């Protein structure tokens, strides 16, 4: 009875085309933004901000990037971590070598650098499909990380290959505290998520989905496969690049190429599978899930089993649960948490009536 559309009529196509056509959704979303944008920085403790909320936002951004490429455009990629690496190192080098480089500009340039590399490695997708393409993206993953390790210029000739991210400052204000970093991340992610949502419901998004669903038919309608696929690679890598830069500057604080390894690429893939392929909301849900699960397990396992099972047990259990959940979601709900959320909303529309 709370969640009813009765009385909400749309009198223009513009109204029908809104992101949240139902008023209750709009209110709910506004409250969510208030909660995460205002209440959280004021009230949350440092641990939550640094170890949970900020990384969830950052990974959501990367997951949105991968979702655009794999979920909407149907090009499977196992190399998203490599593009994050490009973004991180690009941002580092821009800020290092260009005097007075504004941080937000560095973020944008980092994204563009990643987008360029993404287009380069996306070129094979014009000839190659399916798992063959996945193997090609593996080439990107291994090659890019190797390049960043082998050429010391990228890490400013640091002996260990690890670099420390510089302090973030915008218009003279230094973003040092966890709250400040969180808010900056929140703002960037919110804007980019909105852009992504707009993209996927526009003609661009339809072009991607058409190519994903049936590329021959898409061509017959007039879509240019090359442009559509390469745009998907570009936009996706842009998002991963910005996420990588944020990863370095507002989360970890240091950057090293090996940190952006195959394991991280798989993690991001798991985020979109669990969260829901082809869904912007799904990226956030999946990221939250993947970030929270290890923390949950780390706290639960000792509570349940004490010290009986040794240190390796928890991390192995984590591997099994991750893998098991992927399989579970693929069998039970291939459209992930986002679909579960949709089903819940549909039930809510009828509540308290059963049907």
């Amino acid at each position, binding site marked *: 009875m709370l969640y009813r559309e009765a009385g909400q009529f749309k009198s*223009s*196509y*513009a109204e029908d*085309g809104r992101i949240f056509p139902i008023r209750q959704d709009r209110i709910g979303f506004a409250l969510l933004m208030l909660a995460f944008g205002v209440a959280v920085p004021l009230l949350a403790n440092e641990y939550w901000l640094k170890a949970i909320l900020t990384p969830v936002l950052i990974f959501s951004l990367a997951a949105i990037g991968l979702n655009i490429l794999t979920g909407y455009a149907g090009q499977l990629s196992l190399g998203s971590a490599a593009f994050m690496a490009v973004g991180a190192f690009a941002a580092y080098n821009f800020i290092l070598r260009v005097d007075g480089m504004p941080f937000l500009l560095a973020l944008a340039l980092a994204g563009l650098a990643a987008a360029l590399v993404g287009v380069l490695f996306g070129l094979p997708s014009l000839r190659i499909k399916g798992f063959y393409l996945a193997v090609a993206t593996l080439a990107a993953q291994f090659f890019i990380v190797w390049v960043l390790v082998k050429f010391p210029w990228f890490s400013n000739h640091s002996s260990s290959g690890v670099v420390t991210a510089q302090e973030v400052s915008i218009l003279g204000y230094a973003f040092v505290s966890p709250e400040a970093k969180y808010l900056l991340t929140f703002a960037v992610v919110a804007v980019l998520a909105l*852009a*992504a949502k*707009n*993209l996927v419901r*526009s*003609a*661009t*998004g*339809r*072009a991607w*989905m*058409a190519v*994903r*669903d*049936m590329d*021959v*038919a*898409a*061509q*017959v*309608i*007039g*879509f*240019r496969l090359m442009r559509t696929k390469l*745009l998907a690679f570009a*936009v996706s890598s842009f998002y991963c690049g910005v996420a990588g830069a944020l990863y370095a500057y507002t989360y970890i604080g240091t950057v090293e190429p090996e940190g952006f390894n195959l394991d991280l690429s798989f993690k991001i893939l798991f985020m979109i599978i669990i969260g829901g392929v*082809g869904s912007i909301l799904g990226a956030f849900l999946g990221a939250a899930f993947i970030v929270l699960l290890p923390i949950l397990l780390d706290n639960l396992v000792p509570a349940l089993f004490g010290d009986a099972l040794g240190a390796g047990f928890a991390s192995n259990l984590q591997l099994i649960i991750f893998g098991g959940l992927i399989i579970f979601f693929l069998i039970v709900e291939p459209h992930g948490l986002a679909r579960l959320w949709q089903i819940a909303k549909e039930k809510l529309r009828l509540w308290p009536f059963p049907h």
Partner: protein
Amino acid sequence: MARQSGDVIVDLRNISLRFGGVKALTDISFDVREHEIRSIIGPNGAGKSSMLNVINGVYHPQEGQIHFRGQLRRRMEPHHAAEQGIARTFQNIALFKGMTVLDNIMTGRALKMRCNFLQHAFYWGAAQREETAHRLKVEEIIEFLEIQSIRKTPVGRLPYGLQKRVELARALAAEPHILLLDEPMAGMNVEEKQDMCRFILDVNDHYGTTIVLIEHDMGVVMDISDRVVVLDYGRKIGDGLPDEVKNDPDVIRAYLGGAH
């Protein structure tokens, strides 16, 4: 039937198409006039869909020439055909299963949309106006084909007959000069077929769209076609007005089988 046929718009000469050792089409020549309804008929496996794919640029014939509006066409890719105003439907329904009916039809407007992806990302302003304007056009087609109630349904959930109608809507959304329809009435009952016939005739009547139609139902073919081409085993065995073709002994033999 209602419109006067115009000049030759598509002229196929000596088209031969092979897949490895399989000869799909052998030395086929016929033409299509503007504004007419041209049917291609023939037994299963005669090469009718392949013929459409050749016109469309999906398959490239090893031999032969295609003249489009008097100009010889070099190897044409499918999106060139779309840009030239050719739209089509497919025998096995090529809808985008992951999208709603509305979105599927909107993809048909792709070539008419001008905004770039940055404008789409921003949405407010040009992109929103363009989306709304094209939505208006698409709604006209939805109304024309009477599918308002299912516009937000994912196409995967629709019954076969409705999917075919949505595919037709998507083809119409491109405002094509030439419409290639591959068995648009397959699997439909009598009532649905009558509806589909009416739609096809209306499109030809209203918009003057040239229609090339593959169809098995002889009643439909004889009723609505201006001219008919008959294919059998990849060769042309008949070409002319419906009545001529109906009484042609070669055609009758191909369909009913003759004494050997």
